[in-house]
């Protein structure tokens, strides 16, 4: 009982109630009600919490590592690794302006597995954090042999990441070739 009284600090016994054991249940009921009200109040305030409190500390370095993991996974044709990097609703805009879903992107990586690919990311990759969202801007170069033809090109990308269920996942990615 003392425990409940302490939790309900500041409460006053209701007028007319006798300090008898029978009234203790009523008082503890009021205490419980107040606790519930406080819980409800906190639940209501949760969406208003500043985003910085929910952001991932050290997000920038994790995102740079994820970008590198993405390139390595794409080079190896590692679908499982890419599956973890992308959100299920991920949208990818390719160099030719076509729009791909996650499934379509992974399918393409599978088909292109075996191509001699070499991706090079420029060191000036830039991460901008906006609470639990991050925008990564960078430049890439590509060298590869596909269907006996050598390809070489470079482009710029913007990837948008969201910190979801304790990890960063890519939700939107776009590539634009740098025209000569």
């Amino acid at each position, binding site marked *: 009982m003392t425990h409940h009284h302490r939790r309900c600090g500041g409460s006053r016994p209701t007028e007319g109630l006798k300090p008898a054991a029978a009234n203790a249940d009523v008082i503890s*009921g009021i205490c419980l*009600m107040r606790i*519930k*009200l406080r819980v*409800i*109040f906190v*639940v*209501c305030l*949760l*969406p*208003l919490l500043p*985003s910085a409190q929910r952001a991932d500390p050290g997000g920038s370095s994790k995102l740079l590592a994820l970008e590198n993991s993405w390139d390595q996974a794409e080079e190896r044709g590692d679908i499982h690794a890419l599956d973890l990097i992308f959100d299920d*609703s991920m*949208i990818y*805009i*390719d*160099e*030719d*302006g*076509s*729009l791909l879903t996650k499934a379509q992107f992974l399918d393409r990586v599978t088909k292109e597995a075996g191509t001699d690919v070499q991706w090079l990311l420029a060191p000036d990759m*830039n991460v*901008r954090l*906006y*609470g*639990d*969202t991050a*925008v990564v*801007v960078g430049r890439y170069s590509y060298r590869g042999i596909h269907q006996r033809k050598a390809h070489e090109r*470079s*482009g*710029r*990308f*913007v990837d*948008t990441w*969201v*910190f979801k269920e304790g990890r960063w996942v890519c*939700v*939107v990615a*776009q*590539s*634009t*070739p*740098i*025209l000569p």
Partner: protein
Amino acid sequence: MQMFSRALLVLACIAASAPMAWPQESQRNRILALENAWDRAVQQKDVKVVDLLMADELVYIDFDGRIMNKTQYLASIGEPQLRIEHVISGSMQVQFRGETAIVIGVYQEKGARRAKPFMRRERFVDTWIERNGLWLCVASQSTLILH
């Protein structure tokens, strides 16, 4: 007492979800209106309006892979040798992701640069953040649609 408590809990749940559910539609319309305002301003070369829509840290990647900051982008709109006849964004979808709104759409542009006419279709992604009650674009990228 129990009924009152349950009613309060239901109200609390509604209140908690409201910032995400109810205003989202109006925010979506607001973002789309800003995208349209941006198009009009580009067509009219109204650099002041575009300035108001962009965050200072804007990163703009043009269809040809050129990267620009806000100052460079504003200068490119006002370029005297550029004449824009027609600008329209369509097929726009707005996604609210964390703190941002992401717009994916198709942009059509017709005009002339140094008397050389052009007509382009581009797929774009614009990333907006809300700052002090104003939505500002922080990143914009376009890619030419080849097919």
